[in-house]
Each structure stands twice: as C-alpha cells, then as structure tokens.
C-alpha cells in the first residue's frame, strides 16, 4: 500500500489537495498514481493566472510510456505552477506529496466533496492495489 498522508484530501482520480495557510490549495498526484505511471520524464503545469473549472485538465504528466492528464479537483485561479518539474519531473516519483506538487490554486466558490485519507485508502483497496 502506498503512503497516504492523513492531513490531505483526495479524489477518485488520484489527485491530492493540501490547504495552505494563505487560503490557497496545493494540488498533486498521489504516490499510488506516480507508481502506476512509472518513471516520469515530463510534466506540464498550468501558468499563474490561468482560471480553471472543476474537472478541467490542468496538467500533463508523462512517463516513458504514456502521457496522462491531471484533472483539477476544484475551480479557481492558478497562483503557481511547480517550476522545478520542468527540469526534474522525477520529483513526482520521489516525493509525490511534497516537492512533486503540480500547482497551487485560489479556490473560487465552495469546494466539492472529496475523500479523506481513510476513504482514499479504501478506494485503493477496492481497486486491488
């Protein structure tokens, strides 16, 4: 079983969200997701100022084998994309919940219903991981 930090929220499509002190939300893909993708060699993150709808494709992560879209769990305006990933996409493999974050967002409106760490763990179990 992958590690699943208790202080984050999760989606069924394997993104995580961390509420930051300034009211923005940091978003990435889970350790389980990076493991499924394999060695990442390219990441495309959104630019600051881009306005995203909930469920919109907001980033692309590519392993040696395939490209995968990352979907923005909630609507809002991008305050930062992780510029470190341009040169070192492997940070997502090495530290999916930390230095491998993809973007930060200032949420617009109310957040939807997300999974807790326990619920996400259940989801992974159900998927047979």
């Amino acid at each position, binding site marked *: 079983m992958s590690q699943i930090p208790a202080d984050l929220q999760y989606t069924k499509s394997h993104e995580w969200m961390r509420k930051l002190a300034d009211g923005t939300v940091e978003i990435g893909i889970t350790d389980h997701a990076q493991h499924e993708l394999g060695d990442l060699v*390219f990441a495309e993150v959104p630019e600051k100022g881009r306005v995203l709808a909930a469920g919109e494709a907001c980033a692309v992560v590519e392993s040696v084998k*395939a490209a995968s879209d990352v979907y923005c769990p909630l609507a809002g305006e991008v305050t930062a994309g992780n510029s470190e990933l341009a040169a070192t996409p492997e940070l997502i493999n090495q530290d999916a919940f930390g230095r491998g974050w993809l973007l930060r967002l200032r949420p617009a409106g109310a957040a939807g219903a997300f999974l807790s760490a326990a619920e996400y763990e259940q989801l992974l179990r159900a998927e047979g991981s």
Partner: protein
Amino acid sequence: MGRRTPLYELHLSQGARLVDFGGWDMPVQYASQLAEHHAVRSAAGVFDVSHMCIVDLTGAGTREFLRYLLANDVGRLAQAGKALYSCMLNETGGVIDDLIVYFLSDSAFRLVVNAGTREKDLHWIRRHAQAFGVAVRERTDWAMLAVQGPQARQKSVSLLGGAERQRALALPAFFGCDVADGFISRTGYTGEDGFEIMLPAAQAVDAWRALNAAGVVSCGLGARDTLRLEAGMNLYGNDMDESTHPFESGLGWTVALEPGARSFIGREALERVRSSGSARELIGLLLEDRGVLRSHQKVIVPGGGTGEITSGTFSPTLERSIGFARVPRGPVARVTVDIRGKLLAARTVKPPFVRAGKSLVY
C-alpha cells in the same frame, strides 16, 4: 486473460507489471523502466521474448521458397548460421511482417516472426509453402530469451558447457548456432551486443534465474521499446504495416531487387514505386523543445505537407525525446510537431540515435 510464456509466474514473482502485448500477458517493466534501459546500455539485461514465433522450415525447396516469400534475398546466405533481416510483403508491397531468417542448412531455415502477427504469418507462410514442398513447424516447445548489453555475451555463456561456450563466444554478429537442446544467436533489438537464446520451455526459468545470479537485470517490454527506438529499429504495427511499403518505412535497404530475375511476392508493386519514386519516407526526429513525441502526433513540414509520428518516446540515453515520422519525401532539416495543440520544434536525425552505449546525435 492472454497467453502466457513459460516465465509468466517468474515475472510476477519479480514484481513485474504485466500488459497485453499481441494477445500475450507480458512484463512491461519490473521496478523501473529507466533503470532497465540503462542496465542494457551499460551492463546486461534479459528480456522474455518467448511470445515471438519461431518457425522451422524444412525441405529441399526451402531456399527457393524463401527467395519467393521474402523481399530480402536468402540467396545471399552462404555460411551456415548466418541471419538475415527481411520484410514479408503482400502482392501490393505492403509489409505483412518483418522477421529474421537463419540459414541452418540447404534444406533447413528458421524464421522468427512477431507475436502480434503470428496467426496471419503462419497462414501466409503455409499457404505459399505447399507449392515448394516445404514443411512448416512452429516451435511452441521453445522459449526465447534476449540477453543484451556490453556484458551480455560473457554473462550468458555461464549457461553453457565448455565447448559450446567457446562456440557461442566465437559467433560473429548476426550468426547463430545450435547449443545443447536449443539455438543461440548474436542478434538483438537494442543496438547493443548480445545473444538471443532459444531453449526448451522447461529450461527457461532456470536459465533466467542463472542470468539474474550472474548480474543480468530482468527487463520488460517498456525498456525494449526505448532501446530499439534509440537503436533506430522499426516496430511492426507502428512504423510499418500492410498499408505501407518498405521504401516509405526506412526499410529500402532490406529489399533486394537485384538479381532482377528473382521473383518474389510484392516485387512488381515495389518496382512501380521505385520507378515513380516513393512519395513518403520515414525519418528520425529529435525534439528540441521539451515534451515527448508519441505515435500519431501530426508533423508539419516547412514548405507544405504534413506527416505523422509513427513511434516516439523519451530517450533515456539522450534525455530528450526522439521518434520516427512518416513525411512527404524531400530534404528537410526541421519540422514542427503538434503536441496537444502546441507546435514544438524538432530536427531531423538519421537513425540510429544511439549505438553501443554512445549517442550518435550532436
């Protein structure tokens, strides 16, 4: 559930991730595709290629049969054990499959064809073999391992006894010989030195374990794909198929139109293409911008015309993206590639990109 090779359980026990490949459940990677790739470039790796189809052809008419069946000319094979790479074409010059043929004796040749084309290949071969009185036998009793890398040969011969060891080490490139109950050849699909080893299915697991014990890394089809693309080698189904002919697939060098008296399937169609000139060609590309080339991306050629990426990947050796593209024929130094709506710059490179561990791209 797909077909399984004799190594299926071993792959699972080694933590392989399995995928469907041509109807077979095959390991795509073990721990890390990148690490497996680098192991082959720097030391040695082993691939399960038992899904590939080994076909033994026997009978006095075998050489004449193959001279008719294949676009390359087995008449060139004079020394026992010598291998030849060839396309097998249909009447319109489309590629039914690409394969390796080994000359064993005047009445025996061995083919290795792709897994995904097995059924249609066997059907086609049997259909045409009858007239030549050639017997066709698929070697489902054998497994096949590809051991590749600069240390591959030295590490592989630990599987063999003394005399056979010497014989295997003495094989020149693109030759094979019988060993014990199997066959070993100095061939591969990675651009590195190495062996491909055919052996009885029941011996495959022990051989794999012995190779691991000798320091040979288990490698999946993911690494096999990045290695072959760096080595400038085509993949059937991606870079050519029945809708494309060898001249637009970077395989003109494998078509033997001389001697002109040799009749082979597809010859008339290829002669027409050659006299009018192929409209398209397969080129190598190195992506200059950041991103990853993938098959089916659109390629825009300066001065008009478009083409398509046929194979693309991230090259672990070059740490850039490389690929093949089929484009209108003509000199072109630079193209743009549409990657998810962004137009990125790529320059043309004559494959191979990497050989024997060294980058050939400057």
